[in-house]
Structures are given as structure tokens and as C-alpha cells.
């Protein structure tokens, strides 16, 4: 699953702008992934200018 590190996030919204699924919610200084909508496509990770979005393998079914 995809995780945003809240302490490092600048709340700039770049990730929201590239999310094809509308799966990220951003308020003034709060951000969260709307998990039922997230497809783990990782575009937000590539677009994040300051490396605060990470892919966490825990919780994702390993490919067999």
C-alpha cells in the first residue's frame, strides 16, 4: 500500500494532481490516501517533488 509521511509532507498537492482515481484528500495541512479508491499505481510516488510518498509492501499480497 501507498503511504504519505505526514511529518515530511509540504501539502503541495502535486500527488493529487496526478492521481487518476481521486484517491488522495488534501486539506490545509492534512493529507490522506482514500484506500478503497487507491490502486497502488504509484504515480503519486514518482510525482512527489520531495520524496515523502513511499510504497509499503506490508499489507499488499505478495506476487507468487
Amino acid at each position, binding site marked *: 500500500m501507498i503511504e504519505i509521511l505526514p511529518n515530511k509532507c509540504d501539502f*503541495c498537492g*502535486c500527488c493529487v494532481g*496526478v492521481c487518476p482515481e481521486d484517491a488522495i484528500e*488534501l*486539506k490545509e495541512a492534512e493529507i490522506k490516501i482514500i484506500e478503497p479508491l487507491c490502486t497502488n499505481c504509484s504515480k503519486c510516488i*514518482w510525482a*512527489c517533488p*520531495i520524496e515523502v510518498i513511499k510504497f509499503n509492501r506490508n499489507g499488499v499480497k505478495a506476487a507468487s
Partner: protein
Amino acid sequence: MKKEYDVIIVGAGPAGSMAARYSAVQGISVLMLEKDRDVGYPVRCGEAISKGGIEEFITIDQRWISTPINKFSFISPGGIEVVIPLEEQGYILERKIFDYALAESAAKEGAEIQTRAYVYDLIIENGKVSGVKVEIAGEKKEIKSKIVIGADGVESRVGRWAGLKTYTDFRDMESGTQVTASNINVDQNTCYFYFGKDVAPQGYLWVFPKGNNLANIGLGVSGIIGKKKSALSYLNDFMDSKFPNAPVLTRVAGGIPCTITLEKIVSDGLMLVGDAARQINPLSGGGIASGMIGGSIAGRVAGEAVKMNKLDHIYQYESDWHNRLGKRHKTFDNIKNGIFHFTDEKFNNIAKSVAKVEVDQRSIGNVFKVALFNNPSLMLDVAKAFFKK
């Protein structure tokens, strides 16, 4: 605050404020909602704009000018500098104060403004957008309106809730980061642009002075580059090599959607403006002036629609925008896609040929001619850019 307005604008940046002003001036009721506690802050912007871009909307005021700009300097990957005097003066703004002044100009025309107002959904009735659901300082409310204008920036979601496709392909999203640093000893009236694969591949790095050796230093790189190395990492490398001990006063991140305008920027009861509509100049990444233009057109058309009691009229905004700037942005986008694939060698060759032109002979047009004449392959790239559909 009332329970119902003619027009509600989501977002109080330059595009939102112009939409508010140009609709309110027609004597209709207008409410502008801003999610942050302040209008104009935080500033996620290099703050450069042309004189004409400002003067169309507001009289120049020294309170929000950091420094006037009269030269551009382009630095090639090999370090060849080409300085070009500008035909039209530019400015580096103090956006915090500039955005305030724009919002005030909307308020003077009668627009209401509410900060700390987070719009989390739209009211949709019979397929038409009819207002917003908003959380104001923690309290949820529904406010109805005839028209909603989404000016909610690169992170816009308002359009999506109305069924428009508004996200940007990650390859067209320039991931940006910027520091405002002091002790940057550069000419205070020159904007510097650095190019090349080591500095900012598929993008550029800017050093924009703000007076007294303060400067905005930032860069944008395509999401396809960010996959391997982040914008932050490129900026840190540049600062370490050029300005290693510069104190950093501000550090921001931001997304710059460098692409053509969204295919649809209007749906029933909804209009999108500024970054939310992807109205940025895709070649320069500049979006203040184009956002104000988009906002002003949308505001005018929305006001007309309310006064005529003919809400279908808002679709007029789409063609008015494309005739004013949208079509030109398509050409700029094609040029951008050509430049994206320039090698460092090509950048250096262009810089070498232009450096031979006397400084007083260098206008943007003349430089372009020399660059083309001495680099025939560039001619092909530009031709491709102009003639591609």
C-alpha cells in the same frame, strides 16, 4: 454568510480572485472560499510575471513588487551564458501581498470571502452542480449556488466530482521545489534559467532575484524523471555546488501541470479556472497571468449567465478561453515536447551560436533566428512542434 449565492468560487488564488471580481462587478452575489487560513500563503511559485500580465488587471504597486526584471540569462549545460535584454519589462512579485491585493479588488466589487473553508463535495441536483458542501473551521455546511467556479489549483478535485477528467498525466506534471535563500549574489534585475540533464532534465532550474540578494531558486522536472531522482535531490545538488552556505528562509514544494488546457472546463453549473483547468503556459510553466485571464473570462461569462437567467451560457467560456490563450498553449506544448528531448550538446551548440550575437542585437526573436540558422536540426524540431496537430 448567506445560504445561497449566484456564484461560489472555490479557491482564492489569482484565478479565483479574478473570477470573483469579474462576476461580482455585474451586481450578482458572489462567495469565494479558501481552504487555507490566509489568502496568498503558502506561496508555491517562482513569482515571475510580465508587466503586461499584471497591468491588464491591476495598477502596479510597489507593495507587492520584489524587483523589476529587464534581462533573461540562459545558462547551457556546458556553462555558456547567453544574456538577452527584454523588450517588455518583467517583475518578481511578493505573491503573499499580491494575492491579497487581488482578493481585495474582488471584495471591493462586493464578493464575500471566507478562509479556512474546505470544500469536500459538490451539491448535484438533476445532474447539475448546484452548490458546495463545505467544512468551515470544522463545521459542515451546504451552500447553494447557480454556478460553482473551481479555482482549486493543481490539487483540484471539484471538476472530478462533476464528472470531468481533470488529473494530469504524471509525465506532464513538473514536480517542483523551491527555496528562497539569502546571500545569493547575482544581478538583481536578471532572471537566470539553467538547462541540462544534470541540473533539471525535462524541465529547467530558475534563479529569480527578489532584491537585496534574496532569491527564489527552484526547479521542475517531469514525473518521468522523478521516478529515478526527485526534484528535491536535484535542487540540493545545485545548491551544494553553487550556493553551499546560503541561508534558506523558505522551502516549498509544488506541482506545475505543464500541459494543454483540459478537454472540458465546463459542465452544467460548473466552470474550472487557473491551474485547476490546466491553464498554465506549458512551455514556461508560468501560470499567474494566464490564470488571471482564465478567471476573468469565467467570471464575466458566469455573471452574464446569471443576469440573462440562461445558465447554458457558461459554455461560452470554453471558446472564449481557447480563442484568447488555449490555442496558443497547444503550440507552446508542442515546442515544450521538442525541447524536452534536446541533448546537452544541442543546448550547448545553440548557446554558442547565440553568444556570437552582440548583446544589443539580442531580442528573443533575433536569438531565435540565430539559433535556427546555426542549428538546422533545431529548425526541424521547431517545425515539428508548430505543425504537429
